[in-house]
């Protein structure tokens, strides 16, 4: 006989973002419409058509030396360090340390690894200029560390998380651009539902604010290049939006089967009701013009939750501030919600934080849960010029008090990889 799928709840969350060193600070700032976008100082941007982004303040990062983890730090990319901060917060709120059976806790991370620096590439080129690689010369000089190898690889970040948080269950990395954070949570949900783990650390991280991380997006003109001030550049659903703003950050949830959470009297912040994932299977950067992929992802998440579109009370939008995404996401929401679409608040956290790519879905999941528990819908800031093609209630510029119990969180990636999560206030 087939066993009934387990209910899955959120017992911890954490984040580090351009507007906060943890989830509380991020939520407070988001509630007040504070922008985390500024002129970049992480690398020299002179000459680039976009010179802004959302940087994380280093003071929020964990101190490795204090914990005797110097060996691990050498292999750790900046993205992983951000994630360690987010997971530390999530694990602490969940009391993850107190779980005895570590074999049944896994890690599911959305991450892309660290880009090589231009300096690294120039250096490496010096040892291969004559057409023959001079590995012994490279190792003799000691200027290029083999630790770079570990920082590049997205899998290493996840395995280090498993080591640090002593999680011996399934451990894997999801690489799907802007959908990665949400997919990491969605796939972890499936593992717990099927009884393959009791708990999962799930989330995403990104730190791309360097030339190699930036240049590709500049070349395809995806970034905002016209802004009166950095804080005004990310303007999802506004008529004057002209590209996204790249940011760094990390978000983590602790997911747990309801039985397990109740048994150990863990705090329960929300229930993960459903997950939908899809591919446009259309084009490399153009979204399907009718938003088919986005519609499928949302419909699947709602059906997976055992709900109908009429149950949805809030949508945390992908809302990147690109012309295409915001218009087509609006169209997709209209298709999914039908006549009710205009009555359901939809807002984009990226208006304040910029786009944290693989971290976005995880950070937004955390903020969605906090919004439900606080009876608050976070705003879409910089919404000044209505776009006739973006005709929903975007909660413009000011947070709104609104009790709500069921929410969707959208994440749609370049290349048409889509994910949607459905969260609900926990009800016994």
């Amino acid at each position, binding site marked *: 006989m087939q066993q009934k799928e387990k209910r899955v709840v959120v017992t911890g969350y954490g984040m580090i973002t351009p507007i906060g060193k943890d989830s509380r600070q991020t939520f407070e700032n988001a509630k007040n419409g504070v922008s985390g976008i500024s002129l970049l100082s992480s690398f020299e941007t002179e000459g680039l058509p976009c010179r802004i982004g959302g940087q994380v303040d280093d003071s929020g990062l964990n101190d490795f030396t204090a914990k005797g983890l110097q060996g691990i730090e050498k292999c750790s990319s900046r993205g992983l360090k951000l994630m360690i901060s987010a997971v530390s917060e999530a694990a602490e709120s969940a009391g993850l340390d107190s779980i005895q059976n570590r074999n049944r806790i896994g890690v599911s991370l959305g991450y892309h690894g660290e880009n090589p620096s231009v300096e690294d590439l120039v250096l490496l080129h010096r040892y291969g200029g004559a057409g023959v690689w001079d590995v012994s010369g490279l190792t003799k000089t000691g200027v290029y560390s083999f630790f770079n190898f570990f920082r590049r690889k997205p899998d290493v970040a996840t395995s280090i998380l498993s080591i640090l948080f002593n999680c011996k269950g399934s451990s894997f990395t999801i690489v799907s651009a802007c959908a990665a954070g949400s997919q990491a949570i969605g796939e972890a949900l499936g593992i717990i539902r099927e009884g393959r783990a009791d708990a999962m650390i799930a989330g995403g991280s990104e730190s791309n604010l360097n030339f190699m991380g930036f240049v590709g997006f500049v070349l*395809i*003109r995806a970034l905002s*290049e016209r802004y009166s001030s950095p804080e005004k550049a990310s303007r999802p659903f506004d*008529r*004057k939006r002209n590209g996204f703003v790249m940011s760094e950050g990390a978000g983590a949830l602790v997911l747990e089967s309801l039985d397990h959470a109740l048994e150990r009297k863990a705090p329960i912040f929300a229930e993960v009701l459903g997950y939908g994932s899809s591919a446009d299977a259309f084009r*490399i950067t*153009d979204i399907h013009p009718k938003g088919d992929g986005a519609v499928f992802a949302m419909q699947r998440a709602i059906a997976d939750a055992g709900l109908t579109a009429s149950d949805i009370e809030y949508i945390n939008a992908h809302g990147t501030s690109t012309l295409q995404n915001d218009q087509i996401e609006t169209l997709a929401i209209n298709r999914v919600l039908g006549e009710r679409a205009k009555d359901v608040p939809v807002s984009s956290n990226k208006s304040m934080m910029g786009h944290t790519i693989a971290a976005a879905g995880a950070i937004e999941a955390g903020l969605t849960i906090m919004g439900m528990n606080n009876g608050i819908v976070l705003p879409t800031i910089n919404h000044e*010029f209505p776009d*006739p093609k973006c005709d929903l209630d975007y909660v413009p510029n000011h947070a709104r008090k609104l009790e709500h119990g069921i929410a969707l969180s959208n994440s749609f990636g370049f290349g048409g990889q889509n994910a949607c999560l459905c969260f609900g206030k926990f009800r016994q």
Partner: protein
Amino acid sequence: MKQNLIPEQRVLEEVTKAIAEGIDIHPAIIKPESSLMKDLGAESLDFLDINYRLEQSFGIKMARRSVLDHMEELFGEESAIDSDGKLTGKAAEVLSMRYDGAGLQIQAGMDMDELPSMVTVSSIVEVVMNLLDTLPDKCVNCGAGNWSLQEETRIQCGSCNEAASFTSGDDLTQDWLKQIQESK
């Protein structure tokens, strides 16, 4: 003075080749009036690829930003696209002037979403011709005034072999818009 070292027919051949290779389609189906998006199935990334190929072929720099972007910067917000996302009368006039040889049906009130599909093979040829027309009288390197044509598409100085320096696409658009502004 307009220079005319590369005939329009040759530019058309090169644009056709760039489109055929960029979108990976047979050159025979590419007609001067073909819309890249509607008739040839181009997506947004293909435009960047085609521009890059043309820059390599002719030694030119295609504009990064659209004429409408430049209009809004020079003439003020909503001078090109109004608050309903529609093309203004002024923008329709400017675009019609810009692409007068390509026979585009540009009208005020058009939705800006329709514009990408208005890009045709002919309109790209016109853009390239405009850039090639900016060939200076004299070589910036040695001051000589005798240009020579290499491999049918690359213009270089007949005296010092320096590649010709054309005005960039963005600068050309801006100069042209400023002229329109002053003439009115």
